[in-house]
């Protein structure tokens, strides 16, 4: 088990010599005149928890259904474990899928649902019973084994669906918006359960979701899709901290985006100064792109990286004066909407480490916003 964890921790996707477990080559899928997936290349490695993320209609579900064998490719090849999947029907693939609607068989009990796939393999009865027991224990449904799907709750159905798809010990498990129907608390619990199960079994998971928080929580890597193509494929922390475009930055988490133009580059530490408003000092931020002078660009900064202070802070690259427009209290933190002198609006998130009554700032207070020169990112437009 540990070896799979170590393998994933070693970031096999960075090593071109590694053989991927799943590979997409020039995969295209068209429905009539609509191109759902447009010429995609993708490698997924053994033991990964890979998340396909994107707005609805971006092609992520189509991509997964092609892996499961429910859609034929218009062009390109998909290989799983080295084997070309062209023409192989779903029932002959080493893949199981957990459906968005769970697709539990309403006429079968929880037990029979879980046993369904095993019975198709014509295993001996005793083996099937043992495996079903094991699965029921794994998802903690012992009390509900004899019930029909309409007699259990949404969360329990979702666990039955998971157990059923895991029962055949597939090499690859596909999860289509698996937690969409659950309320937030149950969803978070289940996310951790999923990760536990994945670590225990070492199965490769591919999950489709439109919930960026879910993708960030569970995945080893996240592929962000838009209009049938990948926008960025990276680890959750990279996708959050180093988005490659303002689309990614905007899609993942909260962010402030300020349009501007490159003023100068500081070769010493790789930072860039950006002109963003008249009669204002330029903003300095980090970049991982090559930008030319005067090029139009976007300065992106996460709300939690902006500090607030009543007095002018010292020794900090970026500081501007503003006024608090609103405060949204979220419990663990508060979001401040601040209007700068230039008219730009900035969001700042501050952890509520003190009780509310001791809060420093209130509505209409004049404050200083500030951030370090590497806190924000400069991205081309």
């Amino acid at each position, binding site marked *: 088990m540990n070896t799979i964890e170590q393998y994933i921790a070693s970031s096999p996707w960075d090593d071109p010599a590694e053989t991927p477990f799943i590979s997409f080559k020039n995969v295209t899928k068209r429905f009539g005149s609509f191109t759902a997936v447009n010429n995609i290349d993708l490698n997924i490695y053994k033991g990964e928890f890979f998340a396909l993320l994107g707005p609805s209609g971006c092609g992520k579900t189509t991509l997964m259904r092609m892996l499961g064998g429910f859609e034929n490719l218009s062009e390109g090849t998909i290989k799983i474990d080295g084997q070309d999947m062209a023409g192989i029907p779903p029932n002959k693939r080493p893949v*199981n899928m957990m459906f968005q609607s769970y*697709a539990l068989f309403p006429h079968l009990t929880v037990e029979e649902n879980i046993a369904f796939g095993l019975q*198709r393999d014509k295993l001996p009865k005793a083996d099937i019973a043992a495996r079903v027991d094991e699965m029921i224990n794994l998802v903690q449904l012992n009390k509900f084994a004899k019930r029909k799907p309409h007699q259990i709750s949404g969360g329990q159905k979702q666990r039955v669906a998971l157990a059923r798809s895991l029962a055949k010990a597939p090499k690859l498990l596909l999860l289509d918006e698996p937690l969409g129907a659950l309320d937030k608390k149950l969803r978070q619990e289940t996310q951790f359960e999923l990760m536990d199960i994945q670590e225990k079994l070492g199965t490769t998971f591919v999950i489709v979701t439109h919930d960026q928080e879910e993708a960030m929580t569970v995945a080893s890597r996240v592929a962000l899709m838009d209009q049938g193509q990948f926008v960025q494929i990276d680890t959750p922390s990279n996708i959050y901290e180093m988005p490659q475009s303002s689309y990614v930055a905007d899609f993942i988490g909260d962010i402030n985006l300020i349009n501007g133009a490159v003023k100068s580059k500081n070769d010493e530490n790789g930072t860039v100064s950006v002109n963003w408003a008249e009669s204002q000092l330029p903003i300095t931020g980090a970049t991982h792109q090559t930008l030319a002078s005067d090029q139009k660009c976007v300065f992106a900064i996460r709300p939690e990286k902006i500090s607030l202070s009543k007095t002018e802070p010292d020794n900090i690259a970026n500081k501007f004066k503003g006024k608090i427009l609103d405060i949204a209290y979220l419990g663990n933190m508060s979001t401040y909407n601040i209007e700068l002198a230039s008219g730009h609006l900035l969001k700042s998130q501050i952890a509520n480490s003190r009780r509310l009554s001791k809060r420093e700032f209130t509505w209409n207070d004049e404050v200083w916003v500030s951030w370090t020169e590497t806190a924000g990112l400069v991205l081309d437009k």
Partner: protein
Amino acid sequence: MKIQRYLLIVIPYLWLLALFLVPFAIIFKISLSDIAISIPPYTPTFDWSDGFAGLSALISEFDFENFIFLTDDDLYWKAYLSSVQIAAIATFFTLLIGYPIAYAIANMPDQWRPTLIMLIILPFWTSFLIRVYAWIGILGQEGFLNQFLIWLGIIDAPLVILNTNIAVYIGIVYTYLPFMILPIYSTLEKMDGSLLEAAQDLGCSRFEGFWLVTWPLSRPGIIAGCFLVFIPTLGEFVIPSLLGGSNTLMIGKVLWEEFFSNRDWPVASAVAIILLLILIIPIILFQRNEQRLREQQGE
């Protein structure tokens, strides 16, 4: 408020009382009477002017003679048995033909389904009698079917179909097919398509997927359809008398003959009472199936 609620319940019960229980009681009374050459053709009759004394006099003259007669003459139980047999076989063939049609319609693209269902219902717009008469023209010795088969060269001499049990089966299957198709279609149409994908994903071939998922899930529709065909077929009179022959024995026909040829109302009423008792069993089973279906949907 409470009165309104009772009123609401009372209406269907009044309906049932007026249109089922009262006629049933009258028929039951006649079945206990004796045949007489009079108007009405049975005795005793109840005279309202005699009051309570008349009623008790009436009851004292009742007997179960007619029911006993039904067991004496083997015509009747043979007719019952043959009716059940014909109804069962016809129901089976209706299912055999109806299921694939319902399945095909349910799997058609959305925009086609209402039209196809319309086509299934369309024959109802023509009189049932005319449609059965039309079959005489098709199935007769000189009918379209024989002419067509002879023209094709498949047969040399015309087949005898009309006035046999085969014609009765054809008539029943044709007439009651929509009652089989519609309930099956409605269960198939509601089925979640991802269930079949899940079955395939778990290792089923297409046929196994149908057999293990689609078929059991359409069972409530199959049961409903079978009862909807079986129950009216059991007492069917028009089809066997128009298409059937002299050896087609169905209880509906016997009933008709007792009433109109023999003018033996008491025996005819006894036949009707027994038919009703036989029908009540499948009707109760049908209601229980419907109940279960509703419970399943009401999850």
